[in-house]
């Protein structure tokens, strides 16, 4: 194809830069199109459909199932006045705060700092022990803990506590919420550790050395030098872990099914119960929409507070 001195193509009668833009746009469409299509079909469309369902009394069982009706915001009004739902929101908040935000973050950071230390021995074994819970499938992890926390004297934890003269404890009944918090911390340390390890790599050793020469203690170095430098990745981790922990279902379902007495009924289990056990798809969808809004607010707050680009 030939062009004249003004950059106009003789064949298409288009300026060269416009032709290039058009080609770029096509390439962009080709590259992003499949992903956008998949996200549209499997993420955006279900969310829109869930929002629509949340405004109806759709159920899967009984004669009402044949004729679902539009009921406006009734499902939302019902949920926001329902003790079980509000209680599940509260438990989810406690679960996120204690297991993800405090437990996983603190222990993940400690593990990452230990692995960064030169004097640390057997780093491979230590790292593998931390990462193992993350690679074990959820069902396997749940069954392993169910066995360890078994209420009879044959339970592993009870066998250990028995050595100290304690009687058998029904961990998953008497301390159900604490148990699932501990198990979730155990499973999540690895991800925190990997994120923080990567962030710590970017902290210049000279700064640490300089602070040390100035007489700063290890805690002071961490608080004043290291932490401000890795603030971005830490906030990003907090955002990710809060969102993923809010949606945890399998671990709790396999261990306690939300019991005893609803003690571990997190929002995800409440939604499952309403939508699939009670077949109230409309109500379950409304609960999902409320959860989605909460997670969005949480995410936006993190981003604003941390002033980080996500």
């Amino acid at each position, binding site marked *: 194809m030939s062009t004249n001195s003004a950059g106009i193509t003789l064949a298409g009668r288009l300026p060269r830069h416009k032709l290039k833009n058009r080609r770029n746009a096509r390439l962009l469409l080709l590259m992003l199109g499949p992903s956008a299509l998949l996200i549209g079909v499997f993420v955006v469309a279900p969310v829109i459909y869930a929002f629509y369902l949340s405004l109806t009394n759709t159920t*899967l*069982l*009984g*004669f*009402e*199932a*044949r004729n679902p009706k539009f009921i406006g915001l009734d499902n939302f009004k*019902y949920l926001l006045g*329902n003790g079980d739902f509000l209680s599940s929101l509260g438990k989810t908040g406690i679960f996120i705060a204690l297991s993800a935000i405090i437990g996983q973050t603190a222990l993940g950071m400690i593990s990452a700092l230990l692995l960064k230390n030169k004097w640390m021995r057997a780093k491979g074994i230590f790292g593998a022990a931390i990462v193992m819970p993350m690679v074990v499938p959820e069902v396997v992890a749940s069954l392993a803990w169910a066995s360890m926390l078994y*209420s009879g004297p044959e339970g592993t934890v009870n066998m250990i506590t028995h050595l100290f003269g304690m009687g058998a404890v*029904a961990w*998953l*009944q008497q301390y159900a919420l604490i148990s699932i918090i501990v198990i979730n911390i155990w499973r999540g340390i690895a991800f925190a550790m990997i994120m923080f390890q990567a962030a710590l790599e970017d902290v210049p050793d000279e700064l640490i050395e300089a602070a040390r020469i100035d007489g700063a203690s290890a805690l002071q170095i961490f608080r004043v030098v290291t932490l401000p430098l890795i603030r971005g990745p830490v906030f990003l981790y907090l955002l990710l872990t809060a969102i993923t922990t809010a949606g945890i279902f399998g671990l709790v379902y*396999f*261990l*306690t*099914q*939300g*019991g*005893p*007495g*609803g003690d571990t009924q997190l929002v995800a289990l409440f939604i499952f119960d309403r939508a*699939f*056990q*009670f*077949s*109230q798809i409309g109500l379950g969808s409304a609960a999902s929409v409320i959860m989605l809004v909460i997670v969005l607010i949480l995410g936006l707050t993190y981003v604003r507070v941390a002033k980080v680009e996500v």
Partner: protein
Amino acid sequence: MIRNRILSAVALTAGGVLMATGLSSCAAEAPADGPATITVLAHQQVRADAIKAEIPAFEAAMAKQGQKITVKLETDILTDAQFSTKITQQYNAGTAPDVVDMNSAGMSGYAGAGYLLPLDDYLAKWPGWESFFPITKAAAKAADGKTYALPHEMGVQSLFYRKDVLTKLGIDTSQPKTWDELIGRLQKISAATGGPAITLPAGTAWGGGSWAEGFGNIVAGTDGKFFDESTGKWDVKNEGVAASFDLFAKLTQDKLLPVQDLQNPNPWIATKYKGFVDGSIPVAGQGSWGWKYDWGPSGSAPIEDLTSKVSTWNFPALDASGSPYVTTAPGFSWAVTAKTKYADASVKFIQWMSSDEALANQLVAVGAVSPRSGLDSVAPYSNEPQLLEAEAQLTKAVTVPYADGVDQISMAVQKATEDILNGASGSEATSTFVKQATDLLGPTKVN
């Protein structure tokens, strides 16, 4: 130009495929006497085994009649609650198998939603339907008066007790007339063993069993007005309901129920399969299937020399004015999916499975009572005295209501009895139940 042609060709092909898919999905029903492949779903191993054993004979019988019907058995081993969740999604998505062997407790919900094929026309032309007990026929009817499922077993529920254990402890084994009398005995057992004395399904972990095998049996023995058939409403504030919750609360407060075990996932394992089997919980609310499915030689937790160690009491009355009773409800039923392409072949299959020998074999495999007359002389059912005795009780048994809305009532019962296991009083549990049932059913379906 070439690219445009290629695009057009791709678009045409895609359109063709879509059209073909659409047309195939709305294909007309297959001819009644043409070859058919029907899929049958079972979710309990023992039932699946019993069905599998009958399929070759059915296929051969159909071939002899000149029709090729192939039966494909799908076995998906799940608990009742898991199965209910899964099959509901399959029905809703239009991907359910042609025939489903299901617990009758869920039938009204599926029928109401339009997932099941009405069988009335088929049953009206089938002589075999005549022999079904009136109590079976009544229980199989949905709220709209149609029959959507063919029960292939009845369950008779009562209290099973370990007579060897009670005799050893010096506890009276005669029929207790009232719950007060039975509680007196249970307290003696508990004092001797230091543990709970009776297991009755309760709470959320047991799922639908907390209603169908627990609370439902107690409330069925009250004034019988829990469900009003004339109005189609549930009387959730009925005195019998409150009295039944009071009983559960009393059993819990007196530490006669295995509270912790009932709150574990799969609570039947620690209670029925461990506690009752080793004799540490020597009384259990149980259906006639306990003789085979649970504690029989091939059952989930066999008890050696079962019939000499275990016997049954009727449920005692809640007060001195009542009489002990047993309850009955259809156990499992055959349901044909409304969207099946092979309705006639599917119905032929379930009718054949209800014929003498096929039915007798299935009943003995699971330990269920016959849903119809004429089986007391058909082996191997005729060789099972416990099942024959239970069948004889059918006529005087009290029925547990299974009307439209029973799923929601079951859920409210699970929640209320869970509260009791966590220390709530009977009146608190009744309040929880009334609120939950009203929420779930809507105010128009409750009194």
